[in-house]
């Protein structure tokens, strides 16, 4: 269980953030809490007053009491509902607002940090928790209940004290003694305190157990979600599972996760919840019975009127349930803030912000010079050197190709160049200055990259290619034509506004080759001085491939371009071919030079060329 101060701190920071989104929310919430805390007591007062007057046959006053209280209750309830309406309207968009805010912040952090699967898993789990148990909305709602509970408890407390202080007027010694202020105060307050002393630690224990269970449950939830959404509902996977008759295995797995983990967890969960509720119910009942006893004695000893039986009776019932609500709202506040804490943690990753502030000199002639100086690199979680002592200068406005076997370090080389990772040792410079010192966004604007596993998103083609809201329609058409996909798009009813993928009813599923063309169009649209293509044509048929390369040559004429390809032919006419092997640059030169070397390059070339001769 997290410490109180930590919970307080989390709640405070979340509220502060929320306040920065909308200034009205907190005052409105306060109003809601106050009104809903007070209103129930009007009905409670009314019932007693009414009964007393009816008992003493004072019908005219009873009539006025009914009119007065009913009207007052109506007005206060109306106000409460009105504020509640405004609050709910404002509150309801807080969830996506928070999610957007966190993402915006997160995406400005270093790649190395945010690509980590742990971060992803934690966030997914956090947001799954939000969808199950509520996020900031629920937090505010629970805070209101908590506050309302405090207000109600205060009123109840005053009433209880008032009840205790009333003086008995009876001949019966025993009754008078019990009904005396001191004894009755001792009985009620003592008993309530005693019950609280039992409930609160027990509550905490239950809560801790629930938290632990939620942790375990989260893991199995992840497993079952993965089976259901990634496999069962995913028709693309269906072909493989059927051909290979994987049904039995899938059923077995699902059975394991569902029966052994999920159901077991939830059974325990349900038991906890039932036990907690029963326990609360018992405590409530105990307080109620004791309180009623005191009320009865007070009435029988003539300390209070008979009508007060209902007033105090209703009050004590209301008080006990408010007490339990308040306690459980506190528990919920703790558990919600416990998982929402991770949001705040993300905001605090100051050390992950992209470094560098030097602006990039804007040059129309694209005269940028990049140099690798003794660059070594290994990925943070392993010791295996992926790149060793890379020394290399990127010639200006030149077509360059990188070849090498799978795992030779080609893609890593690109990752370092575009600042996805930082060299473990050595330095990469742009016009003589370490690239880490440049403003990140400006530096990145120098590169158009089509990655091997590029990603497109389920939004309109237009937005996917331009990656902005506002776009230059003419340029868009131009790049789509260059990428050889304009015709296909024009065939579509909604043209460039068509949504990709079938997430939408009218979304269109493009083939792998078509997607690749869109990715290339996206790179062209960015129009940066450096163009990098990492296996861009793997899924394309020979004609499309040819078209693309031809188009690209024209596009990159006054730019520096780097190709990575397993199709050796596409590299042949690059004046500068770099051959990677085991993390090192082993050969450089033109196609003819390299063939003569009879090294790695020539082996690779011949392996492929033999089939075409």
């Amino acid at each position: 269980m997290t410490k109180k101060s930590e919970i307080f701190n989390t709640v405070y920071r979340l509220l502060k953030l929320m306040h920065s989104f909308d200034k009205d929310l907190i005052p409105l919430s306060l109003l809601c809490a106050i009104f809903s805390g007070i209103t129930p007591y009007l009905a409670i007062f009314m019932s007693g007053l009414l009964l007393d007057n009816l008992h003493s046959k004072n019908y005219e006053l009873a009539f006025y009491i009914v009119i007065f209280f009913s009207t007052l209750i109506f007005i206060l309830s109306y106000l409460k509902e009105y504020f509640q309406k405004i609050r709910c309207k404002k509150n309801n968009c807080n969830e996506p607002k928070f999610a957007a805010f966190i993402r915006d912040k997160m995406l400005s952090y270093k790649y190395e940090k945010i690509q980590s699967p742990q971060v992803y898993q934690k966030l997914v789990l956090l947001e799954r928790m939000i969808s199950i148990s509520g996020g900031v909305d629920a937090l505010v709602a629970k805070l209101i209940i908590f506050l309302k509970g405090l207000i109600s408890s205060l009123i109840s407390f005053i009433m209880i004290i008032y009840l205790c202080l009333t003086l008995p007027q009876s001949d019966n010694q025993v009754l008078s003694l019990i009904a005396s202020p001191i004894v009755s105060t001792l009985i009620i307050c003592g008993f309530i305190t005693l019950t609280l002393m039992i409930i609160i630690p027990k509550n905490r224990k239950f809560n801790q157990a629930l938290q632990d269970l939620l942790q375990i449950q989260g893991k199995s939830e992840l497993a079952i979600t993965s089976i259901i959404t990634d496999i069962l509902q995913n028709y693309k996977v269906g072909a493989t599972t059927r051909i290979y008759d994987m049904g039995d295995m899938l059923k077995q797995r699902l059975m394991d996760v569902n029966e052994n983990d999920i159901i077991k967890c939830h059974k325990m969960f349900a038991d906890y919840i039932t036990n907690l509720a029963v326990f609360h119910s018992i405590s409530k009942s105990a307080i109620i019975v004791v309180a009623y006893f005191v009320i009865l004695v007070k009435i029988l000893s003539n300390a209070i009127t008979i009508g007060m039986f209902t007033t105090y009776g209703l009050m004590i019932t209301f008080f006990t349930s408010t007490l339990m609500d308040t306690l459980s709202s506190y528990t919920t506040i703790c558990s919600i803030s416990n998982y929402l804490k991770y949001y705040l943690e993300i905001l605090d990753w100051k050390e992950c912000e992209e470094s560098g502030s030097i602006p990039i000199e804007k040059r129309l002639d694209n005269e940028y010079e990049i140099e690798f100086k003794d660059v070594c690199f290994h990925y943070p979680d392993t010791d295996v050197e992926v790149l060793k002592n890379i020394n290399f200068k990127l010639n200006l406005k030149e077509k360059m190709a990188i070849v090498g076997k799978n795992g030779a370090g080609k893609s890593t080389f690109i990752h370092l160049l575009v600042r996805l990772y930082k060299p473990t040792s050595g330095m990469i410079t742009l016009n003589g200055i370490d690239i880490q010192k440049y403003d990140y966004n400006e530096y990145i604007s120098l590169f158009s990259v089509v990655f091997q596993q590029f990603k497109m998103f389920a939004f309109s083609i237009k937005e996917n290619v331009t990656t902005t809201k506002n776009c230059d329609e003419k340029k868009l058409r131009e790049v789509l034509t260059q990428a050889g996909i304009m015709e296909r798009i024009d065939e579509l009813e909604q043209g460039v506004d068509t949504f990709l993928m079938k997430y939408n009813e009218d979304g269109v599923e493009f083939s792998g080759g078509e997607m690749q063309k869109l990715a290339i169009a996206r790179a062209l649209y960015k129009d940066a001085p450096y163009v990098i293509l990492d296996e861009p044509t793997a899924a394309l048929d020979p004609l499309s491939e040819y078209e693309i390369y031809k188009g690209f040559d024209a596009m990159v004429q006054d730019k520096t371009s780097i190709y990575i390809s397993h199709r050796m032919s596409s590299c042949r006419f690059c004046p500068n071919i770099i051959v990677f092997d085991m993390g090192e640059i082993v050969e450089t030169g033109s196609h003819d030079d390299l063939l003569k070397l009879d090294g790695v390059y020539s082996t690779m070339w011949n392996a492929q060329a033999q089939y075409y001769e």
Partner: protein
Amino acid sequence: MNKKNYSVLSNLKYSLGFFVFYMKKSTLFIGVMDIVIGVAIPFVSVFIPSIAIYYLTGDFDVITSIIVIISSIVIFQLISILSVKLEKTFSGKLFIFRLHFTKEYSDHIIDMDYEAMESTQGRKQCANGLEMVYMGNEDGIEAYLRYFFGVVKNLLGLVISIIITYTLHPLIVVFLILSSVGVIYFNDQFHKFNVENEDFNAAYYARNQYLEKTSIDPKNIKDIKLYSMQKWIASLYERLINDRKKYIDIYFNIMFKSTQFTLVSTFLKDIIVYLYLIYCLIQNTIDVPYFIMYVGVISTLSNWLIEVFNNYKEFIRNDIVISNFRNFKQYGKPLKSNGKSLLKNEAHSITLENVSFKYSDNDKYSIDNLSLEIKKGEKLAIVGANGAGKTTLVKLICGLYTPTKGRILIDGIDCATLCKDQIFKEFSVVFQDEVIFAFDVESNVTGNIESKTDYIKLEQALKQAGIYDKIESLPNNIKQNMTKRIYEDGVEFSGGESSKLMLARALYNDAPVMILDEPTSALDPIAESILYESYNQLIENKTSIFISHRLSSTRFCDRIILLGDGAILEIGTHEQLMNKGGAYHNMFDIQSHYYKKSEVKNND
């Protein structure tokens, strides 16, 4: 597939039947007890103050009064505790039942006919199926039963409170029902609004979820960073929130209208009922304890009535979910064989006779009147432009799709006479999209439960696919969990390694026909060349089909077909097609262009 309508009664029988099947019969008893106690509580609570006032105002001695009143309070509290216990236990049981019931969904979807599942309708059906078990406790079978019990409980309470109120004055009953009808009307309006906006809501949640996951998925971060999509994503969220805001405004306005009406009607009801009761007191038709009882009963009556309708509404909404689920269970039911194969376990000949195929949501034929004979043990290559129908053809051959027209025969046996699972058994297919599950390596390759793994064969398949060393280097070898979707230590394979794993899966399966769809696109030239060289050995004694954009692969195949627009454009050996000088020749020239030694100049 026609949609069948199921009656409420039949749906109830269906759901309760499964409930009894998965849970103990005694669980139903808990539900019944929950209803009985749940109905009793409000009435018992109403009688307590009446009893108390009766004893306090009458001539009873102090001890008797205290004992009677306190014991009635104690009894009431005990019932309340029991009620809490019953209610929580029962709702817990209903939840557990839904989890058990998931099996009914997953068993069917795993076996569902592939073609049926893949169609637009199929995906809707599958979503319907999922709604039954996976959308939380407000949708599906759990909610259906809970609301059913809710309707019964509240209906019972309503009847009793109407009877009691009736003894006061029939007109009061009429008045109370009328004032509640208003609330019900507004609730209904609200409900209608929700139904009308169901699609909007579903779209919102889908979008939100997509955006939520996509924007942080480690696989997307590279592109997001490199193309500075941060601002775009923020604007997508803004759009989402703004659309939502409009809806939320209307939503709460309508809700407020209903609340307003409730407030006003409660106000009027209170005044009228109280005044009438005071009138009765003056007339001496009732005394004070009765006054209290009537106030209590009347206040529950409207509550029962409103709750009956609220529960009923949700019950009926979920009744549709049940009907949909039962339709889902009938949809795409596969014909299952007895597991015996009618075919000999050896390389097959495959014949396609005038086969045409179109997707159910498309009016153009993807495969158009195609005839082809693949001989026993033949090595066939299929080439063609993107979208020529290569993958569709493969899916037809291996039985995933059924021809719209024409027929396919394996060893002369018409596939239409075979069950799908019998056909599937004869094929090992590596599809274009790599399929890696969040299981361990072993399960990924064998696709079967652990006890059935043939470890010798597994090792051999991994070696043949050239991925054995990689797997040996993993911390847990073949027991290593894959992907980081679930496991923190899950291993992620590169493109090349994944293709090799897919190949290993096909080799382990060792079916008489092997089909490889673009297996080399992620391989480097050396690995590609090794695959080509070992290809003959891999497919020994098998019939095989090889699809690739790398035309070099056609060189070691017996026959090549060039596919275009769903039809065979050219067919023959590499030499024959080259001599023909047609489309294939042209394609090959373009790709081999730069590999030729003779031409060294860049003509572009």
